[in-house]
């Protein structure tokens, strides 16, 4: 047998063995990344995404538009919302749109937004009805107090709990960071409200003197991600740190999350904010990022399209320009993967769709709606 025939024979014999070996590789090998589809372009600073039960999407643009998209991402309508005392500047404007759990029957939705003026503004929460692609019965049900000057650190994300109460995240107003520890106001807090804006009787500070009874947790800087995991009953949030010290927190009623006393971040000027990175009586973050990634949105994946992502947390990063996938083991993050870095885009929001696919809003004056599908 010639040398070339021997080589060909060996190769032919080895191919099935190579295929067999490849199929028996452990499943712990990293899965191939998701495929990215652009559904919509030309969105003006899109901020929050929700899914209409009839298919299609409802999303907010920070300048004050409520945008209706078809299931293929085509823009069907841009509606100027007429919210009481609406104020848009810098980080402020129309923030989250949250459809009530019974939206399909009631048409009820909730909008968080900035209200007031340049010198006296705050975060407001409105409830409204969505009928025939119009907002009706708009009612302001909550206004965080006190008002602040400047247009930064509003929070504004929302989630509905199984008991129908709403949890709304708020920021410290940037210049008022010490107020995040003051239980008498809403700066730097996460609040829990009934759907009419009233205070649930089982809120953790109800009945205490000189406190804001709406408070659910305190000691936050600027919370722009919150998700409730029905499977575990866990409520997760993340918040922007200053220069460093972005945090992932597991929220529990009445707990103090430390800002600005306990932080690993420093001021943008390089100055130290606090000598403490941890402090007695204040919860430590489950996970943190230094340097900052600027986390801006979050979902906890419980869909079926990506079995390998089951139970993972996905976080969109503005400064980090990536989708961070966190693998959890109970209450601990055991692995982190950065996805979509090739887009080089600031990412604002991430959601799990009813179809189990992952949807993302990019940030900016020409924002996009992206859909992630399995390869």
């Amino acid at each position: 047998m010639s040398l070339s025939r021997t080589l060909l024979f060996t190769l032919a014999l080895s191919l099935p063995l190579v295929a067999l070996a490849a199929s028996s590789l452990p499943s712990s090998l990293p899965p191939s990344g998701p495929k990215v589809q652009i559904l919509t372009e030309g969105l003006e600073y899109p901020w929050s995404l929700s899914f209409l039960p009839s298919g299609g999407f409802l999303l907010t643009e920070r300048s004050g538009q409520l945008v209706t998209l078809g299931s293929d991402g085509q823009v069907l309508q841009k509606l100027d919302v007429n919210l009481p005392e609406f104020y848009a500047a810098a980080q402020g404007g129309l923030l989250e749109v949250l459809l009530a759990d019974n939206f399909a029957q009631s048409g009820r939705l909730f909008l968080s937004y900035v209200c007031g003026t340049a010198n006296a503004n705050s975060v407001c929460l409105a409830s409204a009805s969505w009928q025939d692609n119009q907002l009706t019965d708009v009612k302001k049900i909550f206004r965080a107090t006190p008002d602040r000057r400047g247009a930064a650190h509003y929070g504004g994300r929302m989630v509905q709990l199984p008991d129908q109460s709403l949890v709304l995240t708020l920021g410290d107003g940037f210049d008022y960071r010490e107020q995040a520890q003051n239980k008498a106001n809403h700066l730097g807090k996460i609040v829990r409200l009934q759907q009419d804006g009233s205070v649930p009787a089982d809120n953790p500070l109800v009945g205490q003197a000189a406190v804001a009874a709406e408070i659910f947790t305190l000691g936050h800087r600027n919370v722009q991600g919150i998700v409730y995991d029905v499977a575990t009953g866990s409520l997760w949030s993340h918040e922007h740190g200053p220069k460093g010290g972005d945090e992932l927190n597991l929220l529990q009623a009445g707990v103090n999350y430390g800002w600005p006393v306990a932080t690993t971040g420093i001021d943008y000027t390089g100055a130290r904010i606090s000598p403490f990175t941890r402090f007695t009586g204040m919860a430590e973050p489950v996970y943190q990022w230094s340097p900052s990634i600027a986390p801006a949105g979050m979902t906890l994946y419980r869909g079926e399209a990506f079995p390998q992502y089951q139970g993972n947390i996905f976080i969109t990063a503005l400064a980090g320009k990536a989708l961070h996938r966190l693998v959890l083991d109970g209450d601990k993050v055991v692995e982190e993967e950065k996805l979509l870095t090739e887009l080089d885009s600031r990412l604002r929001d991430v959601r799990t769709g009813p179809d189990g696919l992952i949807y993302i809003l990019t940030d900016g004056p020409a924002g996009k709606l992206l859909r992630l599908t399995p390869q």
Partner: protein
Amino acid sequence: MRRILVFLLAVLLAASAGSMIQSLVNLQAIVALTGPIATAEQLSTLWFDLRHFMPVLAAIFLPIMLLSLVLSRIVLKRATLGKVPAVFVITALSTWAALLIINQLAPMPTLIALNRTLAGTLLLLSCCALGAVFYHYFSRSRSVA
């Protein structure tokens, strides 16, 4: 050459004073939330800020002081004013104007934490103004007796 060295020293002193005042004000704000902070922690914070915040403040103060000293010279040539008060007031006003511009341009409402309150702002202006006075005083030619 001497004037340049004195000017740089003046900027350094003004920024160091500003940095230490901000450290103390920030620490006081944390003390109000936590109770007393150990001296070692306070010194560590002062030193941290001198290494990390002071250079930023010096970079802000340097052009302000330069402009203010030129402006002071022009004003003092045209008006009969006390030199030290004139340099102090002109530099303080320049610093105030510069902080307003910086805060307009910066993404956050107030870049320097000390600038968040009126008292803190006045202290910041005073640091820069005293730096300019220091330069004015020590940069003059002196006759040898």
